[in-house]
Every structure is written in C-alpha cells, then in structure tokens.
C-alpha cells in the first residue's frame, strides 16, 4: 500500500438510501481541501461503495477508502470501527465529519475510543503552524471562537450547510478498507422509511433563501401565505417556535436555537416577533427582511428592511409585484 500524504485530512461521508453521498459531502471535502489533502472514508451500504467513491473523487477526494458495512442493521458501531481503521492507516492531521445525528454519533464514539479531542459544530477550518484549527459561531452567532486539540488530530464536526468552498475534482483512486469489527454492542435498525419529498421547495437547512412565518399568521390555513411567497422566490419555508407550537407547521421547519440554524442570503420573517431564541437561529443571514404589525417587535432591531404592516396586505402585494416582473 502506498503511503498517505502527510497533510491528509480524513473526511468521513456516509451514503444515503440510494447509494448517493450525504448532502454535506461537498462542503466537508471543500473544507478539507483548503487545509490539506482530502482523503475520504466512504461509509456505504453493501454494493454502493464504488459508485460513491467516484462521487467523492469528483468532489475533491484525492483518495477514497471504501467501507461497506457487513451488518447494515447495526446502528453506528460499524461506522466507528471503519473510522478507527481508516485513521490508523491514514494518520491524518484532522478528521472532518458532518454535525448530523449520525455524524455526531460516529465522532463522539470514535473520540471516546481513541481519546481524541473534539471540536464540535464548526463552521470552518483553517491551518496554523501547529495544525488544523476549527472555527465556531457560538450562542447563535454572537461570538466567534476557534479551537483545536492539545495534541493529535482533532475530530471536527462541521455544521451542515456552513461551508461554501468546493474542492477541485480528482481522478478516482479508491481502495477497500479492511475493518476488524469491535463487537461493541449496538442498537438495531429494525426498519427504515425513506422520506418522500412532499414538496419541490428547497430544504430549509442550507437554503439560500428562507421565508419564515410566525404566530402572526394566525392559523394553519393562513400560514399557506408563507409558502406562496417562498415559491415565488424559490425559497425554503421556515417557522418560529410559536408557529410550530401553535400547530401551523411541523417542528422540522423550526428556525431557532432549538431548531434549524440558517445562514441564508435572504431571510424574510413574516409575523415573527423575533425572540432571542428565534434570532439565535437566523441572525447570521446576509439580508434580513421583516414584516410585522407591531412596530416594537424586536425583529426590526436586526432587519435590513422592515415593514410595519399587515402581512395579509403587504405579502400578497409583494407576490404580485414579483410575479409581474417575471412576465
């Protein structure tokens, strides 16, 4: 086996139900390429490894290690075993993993097993004289913090949708990784139901534009206005916690400290007062627009363009003005 580059960054990516790489893969490889040579560990279901490896190379992985699990119903443990084997071979300067549910499980277990240090929920990476540094945005974007490991390669989980950089495609170079199972006890995946895209709207996490609605929409039926504006703009739909608690929209669309954090180019808040809890999930958006009938609503303190008015008057007029321009 040939040696791995000395500046290797081990990027852990898993495949989805149809064998495609997870959505975070381009960002993870993009971040890795900026600080070293990206080596991908592809965690694949049986039979999907080589196609996924080609995808990883196209996204910038200089080399790809393929680990097809022999026990697809074991939750998490085979992935950790594969990462342990890959890290042993590659001896990377850092390990990058998505800060997704599965990614956090793998990162946490691996770090506990190998006594490595974790830099959690990073929004970027850089390199200094001593190694790879993780950048974090803390308390809903109020603080910028950097962290690293006292020694050894830091295990860095990267916030989904936070990395815009993309790596140059590399010629495919992949090999199968030999993994010795740890025999650690695992939970079982008894069944899996694939999410059917009920909407053609962009996904909230990582969306370039977001239109979000709050309690001010008044009812589940009237919340449809948020979707209409979103569709006019090609935006994702979000909501405040108050709107979720009122049952206007499922919890998966909640923006805020305890929901999804977005850093979109455009964030339009309709009928959202802008409690700190909500702002923590959206105040890093590039341009913020707010429409609210309460001129004292805290959302106006951070809005680039605020309209004090009735969403049911302002938004339909906005939609027709935008539609008229399209014609």
């Amino acid at each position: 086996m040939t040696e791995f580059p000395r500046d290797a960054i081990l990027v852990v990516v898993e495949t989805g139900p149809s064998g495609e790489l997870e959505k975070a893969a381009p960002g993870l490889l993009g971040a890795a390429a900026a600080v070293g040579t990206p080596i991908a560990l592809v965690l694949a279901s049986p039979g999907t490894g080589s196609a996924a490896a080609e995808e990883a190379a196209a996204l910038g992985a200089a080399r790809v290690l393929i680990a097809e699990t022999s026990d697809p119903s074991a939750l998490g443990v085979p992935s950790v075993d594969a990462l342990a084997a890959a890290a042993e071979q590659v001896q990377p300067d850092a390990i990058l993993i998505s800060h997704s549910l599965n990614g956090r499980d793998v990162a946490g277990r691996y770090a506990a097993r190998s006594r490595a240090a974790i830099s959690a929920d990073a929004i970027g990476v850089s390199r200094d004289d001593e190694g790879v540094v993780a950048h974090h945005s803390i308390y809903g974007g109020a603080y910028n913090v950097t962290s690293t490991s006292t020694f050894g390669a830091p295990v860095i989980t990267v916030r989904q949708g936070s990395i815009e950089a993309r790596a140059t495609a590399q010629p495919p170079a992949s090999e199968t990784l030999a993994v010795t199972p740890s025999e650690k006890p695992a939970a079982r995946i008894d069944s899996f139901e694939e999410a059917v895209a009920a909407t053609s709207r962009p996904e909230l996490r990582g969306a370039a534009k977001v239109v979000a609605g709050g309690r001010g929409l008044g009812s589940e039926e009237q919340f449809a206005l948020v979707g209409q504006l979103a569709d006019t703009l090609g935006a994702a739909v979000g909501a405040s916690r108050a709107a979720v608690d009122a049952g206007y929209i499922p919890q998966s669309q909640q923006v805020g400290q305890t929901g999804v954090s977005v850093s979109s180019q455009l964030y339009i808040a309709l009928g959202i007062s802008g409690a700190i809890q909500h702002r923590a999930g959206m105040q890093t958006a590039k341009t913020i627009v707010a429409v609210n009938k309460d001129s004292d609503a805290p959302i106006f303190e951070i809005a680039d363009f605020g309209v004090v008015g009735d969403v049911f008057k302002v938004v339909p007029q906005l939609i027709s003005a935008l539609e008229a321009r399209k014609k």
Partner: protein
Amino acid sequence: MKIIVLVKEVPDTYGDRKLNLETGLADREASEIVIDEIGERALELALTYADANAGTEVAILSLAPEGATATIRKGLAMGAGSATHVCDEALRGADLGLTAETLAAALRRVEFDLVITGNVSTDGSGGMIPAMLAELLDVPLATGLSSVEISDGAVSGTRPVESGVQKVSANLPAVISITEALPGPRFPNFKGIMAAKKKPLEMLTLADLGITADNPDAARSIMLTVAEKPPRAAGVKIIDEGDAGEKLAAFLIENRLA
C-alpha cells in the same frame, strides 16, 4: 428498572448569553441559569414511565458548578427519586472528552438499565455526550429519538435521519437521547417541592470518581481565540401606506434577491 437522566444547567436561551472574553468561559452572571429544556423532557419521559410502572427508580445525574443545586432540586421536585451532582473546580471549562469520562465514571458506580439524555444542549450544541457514554460504558446507543417505548429489558423508538425515519431498538442497559418532539415537562407541585428537600442529593468530586482532569494520555479540546461579533444594526424601517409590498419588491430586486 433504574433510569438515570442527565440534566445540564445552561444560560437561558430566552435571554442574552455572554462569554467571558478573557477566559472564553460562559459568563454565568450575565444570564439566568436554567435546566436545559431538552433535559427536562428527558426527565419527563422517565417519570411518565415510572408513573405507569411501579418499582421504577428515576435518578438525576448532573455535572455542574457548585451553585447548580437549585436547578437539580427542581428535577427532584418534578419527581425524580434521587440526584447525583458531580462538582469539581478542575471541571471548569471541561471539554467533551473530560465531561464524558467523568459522567461515565459516575454511571459506572450505579447499576442502571437506561440512561436518557437530550439530543443536543442549547449552549454547546455538541450533541455527542450520549455517543461517548455508550462507547465508554460498552452499551448500545440510540440517539435522536422522536418517540420512545420502554419495556422490560428493551427500548425502542423512531429516529428521524437526513434521508428518512428509522425504527430502532436496543437491549438494556442502553443509552438513548431524545428530541424536542417528546412531551414537555410537568410543573413541580407544592407537594413535590416539599418532598424534594428530603430526597438524597449526593455530591461527588473527581477524586471520588478516580478521574484526573489533566490526564496526559487524553487529547483535550482547547479554545484558542474568542471574539464578540458586533451586534447587527437595524436598516430601513417603513410603515405600510398601501405600497409597502411594492417597495419591498423593489428592495429585493435591487439587491438581486428576487
């Protein structure tokens, strides 16, 4: 059945939260300190099971500074039977690795069937302690559960992931973490508050647990820099005079956002 629920003190997300710019640590004076709500939901899950299954023991475990007794007592007032508070000056600024080692050592002292935690804290947003505990304690792990069924000897639930929803199960003992989809916490009643004062609350130090904070074999995560972002300034604010929708459209078009 013995269920241990992990709870964490955090700065209230409904108020301003500050970091000390010299130490990089949370400024505990700046905000109101509360039990992280997701931990309260974890406790609610355990208490709901205990209500329906006699002989269930629910205990709280928390790693927190000295002043955390009040928030831990709140958990006892909700109905937990006992609590363990790990408190040591050497844990100030502890990273995920040291936190997990310490909690695992505290869990090893008791015969537990199930450990329940929240999926992610609102302050650190790490969401990795459950995985680290499962690894250190050699038990199965089921994270991010949006519904949970506890039975004798097993736990199962639904686990939403990026591409769909898994149904998962594990034999006990196990570690699970739950999402906000689970029911919110009950309010402690007067009887509960009075009873909480008499419930056992054990204090433990790192020495009691045989943990060394500066173990040279373990890599630690360290903060290199901390900076406060300038607050966002307000921009234009107009009052609708019947044409605000058109003005807003013009703003979006001008800024190439439409």
